[in-house]
């Protein structure tokens, strides 16, 4: 688009006819021209001939950043690893909730990363790409967004690992310290994939470590990494009596709750829930990735079971 500098042409041009047309019989015409010229000239405010086709527009700054270093290592499909610095590297966390009708609703929470479905197949640019989901090392899907429905039919009965791994647009594997950026959780299918046994969140996150090893585990399977808090409810009493549990941010916590009557377990702030069948222990495992004070309570009986202090 034109530049305001062009305004400077206007006064010059309009003066010419005024001076050469002698005594104007219609002074108002020239007057208006002159007024307009003045106004426009004032708006212009710069001189010289126009030299550009439009105002400078956006910057056309050419990129020079690196998209990491290709390693010799490859994934099972032969895609090479693309290593980036730990700092600012993509991260991903994974969680799954059993669906009321079928399978699991899987939630991917990437950081420093965005899904770029339209540019897949293009060059790798930092912090972009897609994810692969693996069930026990078997690729289930390529994923372009944060939610994915995992059908029960894909998950045989038993316990499984569900892994998410981040890929660049050129299908290289994003990696830190030689290891892929990924997260794993455990899923348990009760009968050939119905997956309805425990409507609970299973979570995993690779965090900043880029270790690729940090596995979230289902509580039923036990976990070395998680801090376990066991609570029993009987006759409206909580045992041990409600207290505070201090956690470091990022620490995994495993709430193992047994209630003598059916109820719903709820963790405030994290908005995590689990049904508590009467007399049956239920485990809720998650990463305490938000700081603050959070109450753990039962919905129906309204009991405070404990408080989590995350620092």
């Amino acid at each position: 688009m034109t530049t305001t500098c062009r305004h400077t042409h206007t006064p010059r041009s309009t003066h010419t006819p005024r001076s050469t047309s002698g005594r104007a019989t219609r002074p108002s015409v020239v007057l208006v021209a002159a007024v307009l010229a003045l106004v426009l000239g004032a708006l212009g405010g710069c001189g010289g001939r126009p030299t550009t086709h439009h105002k400078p527009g956006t910057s056309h700054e050419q990129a020079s950043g690196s998209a990491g270093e290709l390693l010799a290592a490859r994934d099972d499909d032969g895609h090479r690893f693309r290593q980036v610095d730990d700092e600012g590297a993509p991260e991903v966390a994974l969680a799954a909730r059993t669906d009321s009708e079928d399978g699991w609703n899987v939630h991917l929470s990437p950081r420093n990363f965005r899904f770029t479905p339209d540019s897949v197949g293009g060059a790798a640019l930092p912090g972009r790409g897609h994810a692969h989901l693996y069930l026990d090392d078997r690729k289930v899907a390529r994923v372009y967004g944060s939610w994915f429905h995992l059908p029960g039919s894909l998950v045989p009965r038993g316990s499984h690992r569900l892994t998410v791994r981040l890929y660049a647009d050129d299908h290289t594997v994003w990696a830190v310290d030689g290891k892929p950026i990924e997260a794993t959780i455990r899923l348990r299918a009760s009968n050939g994939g119905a997956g309805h046994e425990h409507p609970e969140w299973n979570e995993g996150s690779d965090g900043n470590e880029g270790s690729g090893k940090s596995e979230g585990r289902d509580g039923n399977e036990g976990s070395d990494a998680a801090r376990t808090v066991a609570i029993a409810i009987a006759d409206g009493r909580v045992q041990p009596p409600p207290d505070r549990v201090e956690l470091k941010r990022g620490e995994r916590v495993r709430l193992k709750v047994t209630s003598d009557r059916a109820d719903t377990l709820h963790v405030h702030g994290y908005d995590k829930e689990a049904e508590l069948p009467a007399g049956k222990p239920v485990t809720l495992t998650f990463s305490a990735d938000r700081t603050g004070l959070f109450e753990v309570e039962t919905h129906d009986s309204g009991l405070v079971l404990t408080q989590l202090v995350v620092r």
Partner: protein
Amino acid sequence: MSWTRRFLAVLLALAAALLAAAPTALAHEERPVTFPDGSGSVPEYRTGRPDLLVCKTDRADFERRTSAFPKGLRERNLKLFDRCQDEGYRHLQEAVDAVDEPGMNIAILPGLYEEEPSQPKPKGGCARLKAPDSALGYQILSYAQQQRCPHNQNLVAVLGKKNLQIEGTGATRSDVVVDAKYQKLNAIRADGSDGIYFRNFTAQRTTFNSLYVLAADGFVIDDVLTRWNDEYGFLTFASDHGLYKNCESYGNGDSGIYPGSASNINDGRGYDVPRYSIEITGCRSHHNMVGYSGTAGDSVWVHDNEFDHNMGGASMDSAFPGHPGLPQNHARFERNRIHDNNEDYYRNVADGTCAKPPVERGYEDGVVCPQISMPPGTGIITAGGNWNLYEKNWVYGHDRAAFYLNAVPAFIRGEEAWAKQTDTSHHNRYAANVLGKDPQGRSRPNAADVWWDGQGEANCWQADAGASSPRTLPACGPRRGDVSGGSDRLAGEPVKLAQLLVCADYNVQARRLPAGCDWYGARGLERVEVQIALAGAVVLALVGGVLWWRRLRHVRLATVASALGAVGLALDVAGATTTLSSSYVPALALLFLAAWWTGLGLALRRTRPVFAWTTVALGALTLLDAFDKAVVMLPWIPLGPAWIRGLLGVVWVLWAVIAAAGRGGAGADADSSEREPSRSAGAVADAGAGASA
């Protein structure tokens, strides 16, 4: 002579207003180039054994990429891959550099080509070239400098190779991707390479153009996709014998397809022309600022394409210097589907997204950074152009207008000769298009079918055009060149020029989005047109009201007239709103105002004859303006009645203030002296003297 000159004086002032009026587009800065001599021809596609191969070395990757190909194509590719491992190149540039005679074919095998050897920033002598800087932030290099430092600006440079064919061998154009990763101005530049043929690949992510053909006599772009560029997808400049077919482009800050300065081979002709310099067909251009742009897009035949979901479908203009072939002329648009061009990408400027470096803006997620000012919601924009034919297109679903036409005076493009100042926009014919319906016949109306500033001669529109501004338009006859109700104005309507002036003050770098302009989201009272109408209405209401109260409130005719005037002023403001501006309301408002002034004049004729007849004259001019806007545009007048009416209106307001204040000003005297029928010759004489004082 002096009469003409005086008009030109006005025109020039207006022209300044039009500065930006050229609402569109589009341009780039390049070394001085001239048109080819036109002795070439459109190259033919060559099948057969490729002379040079380009591929990568990872066989597993290649097999994965080709595994879903049809059997024959897969086998061919696997054979080519084996051959390529022995004798081929790993980068397209290497193959181009190996071209040693005209007519060679390069085959690029499926894969991703980042052209790593071309990526590094210039070093040594190439970092210190002496060349003028473009305001757009790069050096304007000579051809010799491009040869010396081909990768200062280009990922792949094709310089001076004749009849070269570069073809992807994949099943679709997305199987071969040349990706500049926003590290270069151009992904592929073909400069001085007559007869180049591009086929079946994708080029993407540059800070200017993906595919750039410069000064070529003969080129074909066939089944190529370009996307995500600061400015253009395809740019073919100062070229002749060109053909774009089955192409696609999206995500560009200016246009997807830009045949700028197409060879000006039909200059001086009428509608009948022997040939076109560039043909564009079967292409889709979407989600750009504009789908197609043609600064000096001369003699381009654009047919059977789809331009949709841009801010504007297509534009041609004469608004930028340095383009051979201005003013733009002889584009022919036929059977294109131009629809739903209503994207609002100015929000990306407003929220700071476009201030980031290109690589971080998120073009891949649908971000577009509009480089210039233009009216979003428009099908075809012509900002200074002549002898363009727009026929049999489907134009529908636009929030602003199907067709947008305004003039651009020559000095804006750097030409100051008097004779050239009004050389646009003339002889543009909009006929036999299907407006407001999709090809299946479903109703998809445009908010208005036409917006025209009113300037130019022998422009015409189809008689079945719906809402338009002005509400009446010159109508096209059945044959090209037939126009009924044609006009020939030296300047457009004043309020429209004011609006264009306001709208032009856009600056993407400064994040300046003019507040009064609805192109950037101004609504209701924020719009400059409404503000002008409202200001005018307030002044006229005050002056008219005082005049009536002090001089005429006992005169029935004047009271009725003043009431009509009040209605007229209200309608005038209403008619300036987006909803009603293309309806009959603006003309109706003028009709009421004409009645007001006429009635007022007649009521005053005995007491203040000079002022009275001036008032009547103003009424007559206003009536003429209404007629001009709603019934038929008056031929043979060099400026619309609105101009004269506006000027006389200013005089009238001042005069009315004097008349209302009047000598002795007290109501009783004036009232008695002006009450009809007047009995006092002395009062008449006094009033007359007062008025002429």
